[in-house]
C-alpha cells in the first residue's frame, strides 16, 4: 500500500546514511521505531551523519515529530550529526519550535518519588502522621468555634442553618425508610430461621427490637448520612475552596469554622437523633412484617413481646451513639472539604475521603462506646 509509512535506509558514503521516508507518517499508522532504524544501520560501525530524503513522504503529524525528537536525542547521545535539510519545511519549523525553549532545570525541588516497599511504607506513615495533626488542629478549631456558638457569638446565617437542617433531615427520610425497613426484615429473617429450630419464633421481636434500638438503627442511619450528607458537605466546601469563596469569606472577616462548619455540625447533630429513632421504628415494622408473613406471629403478639422486652435505655443508648456518629460524620465532611486542593479532581478526592473517614470514625467510635456501655452495665435488669 502506498500510504503505509516506509523507511528505506541506504548508504550514501561510508559514514553517511540517507533515510528515505515514504507514505503517510501519521497517528494510527504503524511507524517504525527509532531503535529499529538504528538496528538496520548496525552493519556499519562508522556512522557520523544522517540525511533525509522525503520525496515520497505524503503526510505527517505530531507522531512523526515525536519520532524525529526521539531520533534527535539518540543522535545526540551517539554523537551523530542529523542533517534536517531534507525534511519538509513545516517539520523543520515545528522542530525548531520544540527546541526553542530548553527544558527548565530549576522548576524547584520536585523530587522524583523513590520507589520501593520501605519508601512506600515510610511515605504512607508520614501521610498518616500529617493527617492526624490536621485532624487534631481541626478538632481544636471546631471546639473553639463551638464554644463561641454556645455563648451565642458564632457568626453564621440563620437561613443557612435552616436549609442545612432541611437537607440533612426531612430530605433523607425516603432512603432511611427503605434501608431501615429492609434491615429490619433481614434481621428478622436470619434470626427466625434459627429460632424456629427450637420453636422460639416469638423471640424474633426481641432480636429485631434490641438489634435495631441498640445498634443497627444508629449504625445504618450514620452510614447513610456519611454517604449522603458528609459527602455533600465535602463537595460543597471543596468547590467553595476551588472557587476562592473560602478566601473571600476570610478576607471579609468571617471565620469559615464559624460560618460554614458550625451550622453543618449543628444541623446534623439536631436531625440525626430523630432520624435514628425513625429508623429504629421502621426496622421493627420490617421485622413485624416478616414475622407475620412467614412465621405466623401476629402484629399484636409482636408488639406485646417488644413492649415487654425493650426499655427506654435501649433506645437512649442507640440515639446517643447516633448523635456522636452524626457529629463525627459532619466533622469528617467539613474537614475534607476545607482541606481540598484547588482542582476538580481534588474535590472528588475530598468527597471520597470524607465518606471513608466518616465511616472509619463511625466504626471506631462505635467500638469504644459499645465497650463503655458494656462495662457500665447499662443494660442490666
Amino acid at each position, binding site marked *: 500500500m502506498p500510504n503505509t509509512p516506509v523507511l528505506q535506509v541506504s548508504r550514501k558514503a561510508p559514514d553517511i546514511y540517507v533515510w528515505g521516508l515514504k507514505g503517510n507518517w501519521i497517528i494510527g499508522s504503524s511507524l517504525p521505531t527509532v531503535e529499529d532504524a538504528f538496528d538496520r544501520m548496525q552493519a556499519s560501525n562508522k556512522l557520523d551523519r544522517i540525511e533525509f530524503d522525503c520525496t515520497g513522504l505524503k503526510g505527517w503529524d505530531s507522531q512523526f515529530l515525536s519520532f524525529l525528537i526521539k531520533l534527535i536525542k539518540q543522535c545526540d547521545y551517539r554523537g551523530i550529526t542529523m542533517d534536517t535539510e531534507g525534511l519538509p519545511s513545516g517539520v523543520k519549523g515545528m522542530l525548531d519550535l520544540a527546541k526553542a525553549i530548553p527544558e527548565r532545570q530549576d522548576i524547584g525541588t520536585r523530587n522524583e518519588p523513590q520507589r520501593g516497599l520501605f519508601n512506600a511504607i515510610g511515605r504512607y506513615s508520614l501521610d498518616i502522621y500529617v493527617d492526624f495533626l490536621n485532624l487534631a488542629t481541626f478538632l481544636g478549631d471546631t471546639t473553639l468555634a463551638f464554644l463561641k456558638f454556645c455563648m451565642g457569638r458564632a457568626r453564621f446565617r440563620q437561613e443557612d442553618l435552616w436549609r442545612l437542617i432541611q437537607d440533612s433531615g426531612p430530605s433523607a427520610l425516603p432512603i432511611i425508610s427503605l434501608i431501615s425497613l429492609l434491615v429490619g426484615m433481614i434481621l428478622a429473617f436470619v434470626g427466625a430461621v434459627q429460632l424456629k429450630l427450637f420453636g422460639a419464633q416469638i423471640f424474633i421481636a426481641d432480636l429485631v427490637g434490641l438489634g435495631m434500638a441498640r445498634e443497627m438503627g444508629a449504625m445504618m442511619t450514620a452510614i447513610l448520612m456519611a454517604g449522603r450528607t458528609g459527602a455533600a458537605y465535602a463537595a460543597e466546601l471543596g468547590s467553595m475552596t476551588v*472557587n*476562592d469563596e473560602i478566601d473571600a469569606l476570610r478576607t*471579609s*472577616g468571617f471565620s469559615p469554622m464559624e460560618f460554614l462548619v458550625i451550622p453543618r455540625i449543628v444541623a446534623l447533630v439536631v436531625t440525626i437523633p430523630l432520624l435514628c429513632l425513625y429508623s429504629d421504628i421502621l426496622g421493627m415494622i420490617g421485622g413485624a412484617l416478616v414475622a407475620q408473613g412467614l412465621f405466623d406471629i401476629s402484629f399484636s403478639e409482636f408488639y406485646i413481646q417488644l413492649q415487654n422486652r425493650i426499655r427506654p435505655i435501649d433506645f437512649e443508648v442507640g440515639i446517643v451513639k447516633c448523635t456522636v456518629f452524626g457529629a463525627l460524620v459532619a466533622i469528617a465532611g467539613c474537614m475534607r472539604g476545607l482541606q481540598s486542593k484547588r482542582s476538580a479532581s481534588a474535590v472528588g478526592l475530598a468527597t471520597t475521603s470524607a465518606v471513608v473517614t466518616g465511616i472509619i470514625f463511625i466504626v471506631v467510635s462505635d467500638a469504644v462506646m459499645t465497650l463503655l456501655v458494656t462495662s457500665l452495665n447499662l443494660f442490666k435488669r
Partner: protein
Amino acid sequence: MTTELRASRKHLTPHVAVSHLTMAYDDFVVQKDLSFEINRGEVFIIMGGSGCGKSTLLRHLIGLKEPISGEVYFDGMDLWHSKPRERNHMLLRMGILYQSGALWSSMTLRENISLPLSEHTTLTPGDIEDMVALKLALVGLAGFEDFYPSEISGGMQKRAALARAMALDPEILFFDEPSAGLDPISARRLDELILHLKESLGTTVVIVTHDLDSILEIGSDSVFLDTDAKTIIARGNPKDILANTEQANVREFLTRGKVQERTSLNSFSSNPSRGKQDTSI
C-alpha cells in the same frame, strides 16, 4: 473615612509597605527579599510573567498566606505580627476582587453584598437594602439583586464581585487579574471603572495583572517580578519603565516581545493621551 482625611494622611505613612518579604511553598522559594511601598491614591501594578508569584504576593498582602520571612505593613501596622482581631480589622479596610470573582454561590447578589454590611456595620436592614442597590448600580448591575452568581455572565460576576469588594467602602482595593476571562471591551470598561473609583473615592488600587493595556493605561506605579531572579527587577511608573529600562526581559514584556527601536518606544510613552481619553467616561 472621608476623602479629605485620607488626603491629609497622605504624607504620613505609605498605605502598604513590604519589607524583605520572602515567599515560598514548602521549600520552593517563589520570590525573595521583596521591599516596596504603595502610596495612597496610587494605581499600583504588580506585574510579571506567568508563574512568577504575582498572585502569591497578593495573598501575602491580604492576609491569606503567611510569609516565610519579612513583614507587610498596612497603614504602619504589621499585618502578620498583629493579633488575629487586629488583623481582621485591617482586612475589613481592604476590598478584594478575586480572579474568579469568588461570589458566594449559594447566595443571591443581594445576600453576597449585604453579608459584610450586616455583619460589620450597624446599618438597619432598610439602609442595607439601599446600599446594595447603590453598589450594584455603581457597577452597572441595578436590578440584579435576586440573581444567583451562576445565573449571570462571567463579566457580570466580576462586576458583582467588585460591588461586594466595595461594600464596606474600603480604603484600598486589591484586584487579582481583573481582565482575565473578559472580552477586550469588558476589560476596558472594568479598567475605566477602577480609575473612576480611584478618582472619586481616593481609594488606593493594587492590581495584579499581565494585561499590557491595563498596565500602561491605568498604572501609576508598579513592581516587576522576575521568575529567574526571584525578586523585583523593575520599579516605578510602567510608562517610565517602558521608556527607560535597560533590561531586555522587562522591555520584552512591556512590548509584548516585539523588537522595537528605543526612539519609537519613547514616542509611544511620551504620548499618554490615549490613556487619558479612555478614562474620562
